[in-house]
C-alpha cells in the first residue's frame, strides 16, 4: 500500500502521462518510506494506476477538491485540466505503456523513464546477472552507482513541470508581484478605480476555535489492570479503558471539548497502583465550547469522575494556566518518589537478614536501559540513587520493601536485576535470587498542583 494523499493524484497523473516511471513518481511525491521502493516495479506501477483511476470513481470532482483543501485558502486550488482523459488500468502487463498512449502526442515507442532513464526501473536485474556470473563467495555487499549528469537535469525538468502545473496565483506570489509592478504598468492592465463586481465575496468556510483550557489534579490508581493511556496494538484494544480516558470523559462532555491531551508527572506500569496523594496530571481540553466553571462546579466535576469508576480517584482538580504543563514536567526530573514493593526471595530469610537495608542510605545504582523498554528507548546507563529503604518482614520468603528514590529509577529492575544489567541490585545485596511480586507508588513528591481542601 502506497501512502499517497489526495493532493498527490494530479501530480501522479501528469507525471505518468509525461513518461515518468512509477518509482520516480513516488520520489516527486516526496515519499520517503523505503518499503514503498522495495516492492516490485510492476506492483508499484499497478498501484499508481489504480490510485489515479480511483479518483474518477469517487463522486464529483468538485467535492474532492474542496475536501482536500480544507485548510488551504481557496486560491491554492490545483489547476485541473479541462479535458481529462480516463486512465484505465488494464491488467498487469504493459500498464505504463497504456498510460503513455493516452497522453499527448508523445512517442510511445519506449517506456524508459524520462527522469531516471530506467535506473529505477528494472536496472537491478542486469546487475545481479553480472554479479552472479562473477561467482564470488560473500555474505554482504555494497552497491554504489555513479549516475550520469543528465539525470540531474531531467530531475529539475520534472520538478519544474510539476510546479508549473500548480496554480501560481497564491496570495504571497500576487503580493510580491504587485510590489514589482509600477503604477503605469498597473494602470495599463487593470482599471482604477476597480470595476463593480457582479456579486459579493462569500465565506467558503467559517471555523471557530476556543483556546485550550487546562485542568490539573492528582490521580490515584487502585487497579492493577489499568494502563495509563489506551493500550492498542494493530488497531485492537488490548486492555479495557485507561486512566486518561476515565479522567477525560466527564470533562470532555462538561466542557464540550473536541479532544484532549493528557500528561502527567511520570507514569506507572499497568500492574502498579498509585496510592497516597496521587500523581500530578494536567489535561488540555481542545476547543472547549464551555470554559467558565466556578469552584463548586469544579468540585462537582471531580465528584463525577470519582463516582464513575472505583479504579481511579482524582483530587485537587482545578483549572490552571498553560504554564501548568511546565511545572509538572519539572517534577519528573528532580523530585523523589516513594514506593512499596512486595519482595520474594529464593533463599529463606529471617528478620535479621534484611535489617541492614534500613541502614543503607544514598545507594548509587547504574541501570542499563531495562530490556522491557529497550525496544523504544536508547541504550544507555543511567545513574540513579535510592535515598532510603525500610523493610517489613512477612515470612521466610517474603517481605515488604519501602524505598524513596530519585525520579527515573526503575524499581522492578533494582529488585530482580534485569539479567544483571542494574547494579547493584537486591539479589546482590541479599545474596539470593529475588523477584518483585507487587509494586505500589506511595508518593510522588511534587508540590504541584496546589492542594484543594475538600
Amino acid at each position, binding site marked *: 500500500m502506497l501512502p499517497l494523499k489526495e493532493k498527490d493524484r494530479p501530480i501522479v497523473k501528469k507525471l505518468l502521462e509525461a513518461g515518468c516511471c512509477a518509482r520516480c513518481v513516488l520520489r516527486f511525491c516526496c515519499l520517503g518510506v523505503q518499503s514503498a521502493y522495495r516492492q516490485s516495479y510492476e506492483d508499484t506501477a499497478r498501484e499508481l494506476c489504480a490510485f489515479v483511476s480511483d479518483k474518477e470513481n469517487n463522486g464529483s470532482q468538485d467535492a474532492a477538491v474542496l475536501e482536500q483543501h480544507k485548510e488551504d485558502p481557496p486560491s491554492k486550488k490545483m489547476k485541473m485540466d479541462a479535458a481529462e482523459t480516463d486512465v484505465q488500468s488494464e491488467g498487469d502487463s504493459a500498464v505504463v505503456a497504456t498510460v503513455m498512449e493516452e497522453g499527448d502526442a508523445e512517442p510511445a515507442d519506449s517506456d524508459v523513464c524520462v527522469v531516471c532513464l530506467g535506473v529505477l526501473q528494472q536496472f537491478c536485474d542486469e546487475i545481479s546477472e553480472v554479479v552472479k556470473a562473477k561467482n564470488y563467495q560473500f*555474505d554482504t555487499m555494497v552497491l554504489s552507482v555513479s549516475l550520469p549528469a543528465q539525470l540531474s537535469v531531467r530531475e529539475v525538468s520534472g520538478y519544474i513541470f510539476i510546479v508549473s502545473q500548480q496554480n501560481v496565483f497564491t496570495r504571497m506570489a500576487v503580493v510580491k508581484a504587485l510590489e514589482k509592478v509600477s503604477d503605469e504598468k498597473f494602470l495599463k492592465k487593470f482599471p482604477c478605480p476597480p470595476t463593480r463586481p457582479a456579486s459579493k465575496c462569500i465565506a467558503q468556510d467559517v471555523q471557530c476555535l476556543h483556546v485550550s483550557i487546562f485542568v490539573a489534579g492528582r490521580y490515584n490508581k487502585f487497579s492493577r489492570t489499568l494502563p495509563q493511556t489506551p493500550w492498542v496494538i494493530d488497531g485492537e484494544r488490548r486492555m479495557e479503558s485507561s486512566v486518561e480516558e476515565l479522567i477525560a470523559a466527564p470533562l470532555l462532555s462538561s466542557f464540550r471539548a473536541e479532544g484532549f491531551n493528557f500528561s502527567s508527572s511520570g507514569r506507572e506500569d499497568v500492574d502498579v497502583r498509585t496510592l497516597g496523594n496521587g500523581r500530578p496530571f494536567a489535561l488540555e481540553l481542545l476547543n472547549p465550547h464551555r470554559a467558565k466553571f466556578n469552584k463548586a462546579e469544579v468540585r462537582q466535576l471531580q465528584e463525577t469522575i470519582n463516582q464513575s469508576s472505583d479504579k481511579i480517584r482524582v483530587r485537587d482538580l482545578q483549572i490552571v494556566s498553560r504554564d501548568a504543563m511546565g511545572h509538572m514536567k519539572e517534577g519528573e526530573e528532580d523530585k523523589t518518589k516513594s514506593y512499596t514493593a512486595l519482595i*520474594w*526471595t*529464593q*533463599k*529463606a530469610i*529471617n528478620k535479621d537478614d534484611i535489617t541492614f537495608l534500613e541502614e543503607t542510605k544514598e545507594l548509587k545504582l547504574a541501570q*542499563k536501559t531495562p*530490556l*522491557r*523498554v*529497550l*525496544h*523504544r*528507548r*536508547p*541504550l544507555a546507563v543511567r545513574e540513579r540513587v535510592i535515598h532510603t529503604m525500610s523493610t517489613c518482614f512477612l515470612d*521466610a*520468603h517474603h517481605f515488604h520493601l519501602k524505598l524513596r528514590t530519585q525520579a527515573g529509577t526503575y524499581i522492578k529492575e533494582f529488585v*530482580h*536485576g534485569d*539479567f*544483571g544489567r542494574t547494579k547493584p541490585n537486591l539479589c546482590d545485596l541479599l545474596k539470593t535470587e529475588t*523477584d518483585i*511480586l507487587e509494586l505500589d507508588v506511595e508518593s510522588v513528591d511534587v508540590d504541584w498542583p496546589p492542594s484543594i481542601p475538600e
Partner: protein
Amino acid sequence: MEDMEHNKAPSVIDRYYTRWYKTDIKGKDCEDQCVLQHSNRICVITLAESHPILQNGRSIKSINYQISAGCSRLHNRVSGKSKRGGQFLTEFAPLCRITCTDGVEYTIYSCIRGRLLEVNEDILERPELLLGKPSTEGYIAVILPKIEESKTVTNGLLSREEYESVVSKRTKSTQPEPQPEPQPEPEPC
C-alpha cells in the same frame, strides 16, 4: 532451618519471555543455545542448560568477542531509539568463542537475525556467571530483530517442549560424553 529452594509463581523470564532453542548447532553434538524472546520482540541469547560448557563442572579459560581480524563484538555501538550502528547479525553469525580449561573451544552463535544491541562484558571478568547463571546474569548478547520480522524471527527455532523432547531422546540413546574436538573450524565473520 534448612535453606530449601522455594518454588513460587512464574519468574521474570516466565512472565515476560518465551523460550526458544536451537540444538546441535552446526551439527555439533549438544551445542544447544536458548533465545529468550521478550513480548516487546527483544531477544536475549544464552546457552541452553544442555550445552557442553555447562556440564561436568567444567571451567572457562577465556571468552573472546573478537571473532575475526576485522570484527569484535565489543566494538558494537548503538545510538538513538532506532539503535543505529549496531552490527546486523544473521543466524550463524558468531557472537563469541569460549575456551574451556580442558582446551576445547566453542563458538556461540546469534541463532536469529537482528541488530546486535549489546554483549555481556561481565562474563569476561567473571566467567563463573556464565557457568552459574547462564540464563540470567550469564547471558551472552541482546539482539533486536527488525520490526517486520518480529513474528518470523523464531521460525527456525524449537519450542521448550520440542527442545525437551530432543534432549530426552539423547539420554535415551546412551550418548557418550561430548568428546573434545581436535581442531575447531575457523568461522567466517
